[in-house]
C-alpha cells in the first residue's frame, strides 16, 4: 500500500508530462511523412465552392486534407478524390472532424459553381477552393507545391501539371503529414485516426 502511494505522484507526473507533450505536438507515430514543425500553418485567402470568401482560420477545429488539382483533369484528380472518399467512409463518424480541401490550380476555368458540382460528386466532406491566381500560387508556394500550365492545344484546350501530394493539417492548422502517391490508403487511415483522436482538441 505504502509503495503504491509513493508511486502515485510519480505516475501523475508522468501522465501530466505525456498530456502536455501531446498538446505541444510530441511526435505521433505517423506512418506518412511527418512534417510537423517543418511546414507553415494552414493559411490562405480563397473562395469556397459556395462563393464565400474563406481563410485557413475558417477550418480550425477540423483536420484538413489539402490537395491541389483541377476539374478538367479526367484521370488522376478524380482517382485521388475517389480514394479520399473511401478513406472518409472508412473513418465512419470520425470523418465529420475532417475536411478535404480541393484547391484548383486552374482558376480561369474553375469557378465556384464548377467546383461545387465537382467536389459534391465525390464526398460530402470535400470543399472546393478557387480564387485569385496569385492567391493560389501563394498557397502552393507556401507548401513547396508546384503547378504549371502546359502549352494550349490548337482548340485552346490545355492541361495542367500539378503536385500529387496530399497535405494533412491538424485541428489547430499545424501541418502534420505529407502523403505521396506511393503511400498506402491504410497508412492514411491510420494517421487520420491518430490526428482525429489527439489533434483536434481545442
Amino acid at each position, binding site marked *: 500500500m505504502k509503495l503504491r502511494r509513493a508511486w502515485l505522484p510519480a505516475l501523475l507526473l508522468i501522465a501530466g508530462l505525456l498530456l502536455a507533450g501531446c498538446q505541444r505536438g510530441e511526435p505521433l507515430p505517423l506512418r506518412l511523412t511527418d512534417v510537423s514543425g517543418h511546414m507553415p500553418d494552414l493559411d490562405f485567402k480563397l473562395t469556397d465552392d459556395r462563393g464565400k470568401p474563406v481563410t485557413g482560420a475558417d477550418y480550425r477545429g477540423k483536420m484538413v486534407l489539402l490537395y491541389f488539382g483541377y476539374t478538367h483533369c479526367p484521370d488522376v484528380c478524380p*482517382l485521388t478524390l475517389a480514394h479520399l472518399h473511401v478513406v472518409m467512409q472508412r473513418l465512419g463518424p470520425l470523418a465529420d472532424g475532417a475536411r478535404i480541401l480541393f484547391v484548383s490550380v486552374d482558376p480561369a476555368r474553375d469557378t465556384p459553381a464548377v467546383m461545387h458540382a465537382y467536389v459534391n*460528386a465525390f464526398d460530402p466532406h470535400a470543399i472546393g477552393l478557387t480564387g485569385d491566381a496569385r492567391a493560389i500560387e501563394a498557397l502552393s508556394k507556401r507548401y513547396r507545391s508546384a503547378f504549371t500550365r502546359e502549352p494550349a492545344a490548337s*482548340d485552346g484546350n490545355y492541361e495542367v*501539371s500539378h*503536385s500529387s501530394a496530399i497535405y494533412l493539417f491538424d485541428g489547430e492548422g499545424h501541418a502534420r503529414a505529407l502523403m505521396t*502517391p506511393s503511400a498506402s490508403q491504410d497508412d492514411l487511415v491510420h494517421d487520420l485516426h491518430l490526428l482525429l483522436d489527439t489533434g483536434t482538441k481545442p
Partner: protein
Amino acid sequence: MNSRHFGFLLTGLLAATAVHATDAQHIRASHAWLRVLPGDLPAGAYVTLQNNSDHPIVLRGASSPAYTDVMLHQSSSEGGMSRMAMVDELPVPAHGKAVLAPAGYHLMLMKAANPVKPGDTVELTLEFSDGSTLATDFVARPANAVDDDTH
C-alpha cells in the same frame, strides 16, 4: 451444345462489358468503363485489351458519336508531379495485354453530345493501326468509383 451456342453463352457472361468485334477479330476488350464527371467536364475511359494473335496490335485511339473528341492519354507521376500527355499509340503485345486504368493510360472523352449518367452504356469504337476497329460498350460509373476490377 455446339460452338455457336457456346459463343452466345460467352457473350451473355460478358454482358457487363459487352463486346462485339467488327474488324479486330484478335482483340478482346474487357473491364470497359468510364468515369462520369459533373457538367461538361472531360471524362476518363478505361479498358483492358487482350491480343490473341501472334502479332502485336497497336491501339491508335477511339471515336464515338457520343463525344466530340476522344484522345488517348497517359498520366504519369514524376518527382511528385502529376502530368497528363497525349500518346499516339499503345501497343498490345502478341498473346499479351494492354491495360488502360486510372493513373495510367486512358481515353479522354470530351464534350458529350448528350449528358451521360452513371449506369448508362456508351459505345466507343477502338481504332487500331492496321485499320481494324472494335466497337466496345463502356459502362458509365459515378465520379467517386474506384477501379477495383483490374487490380
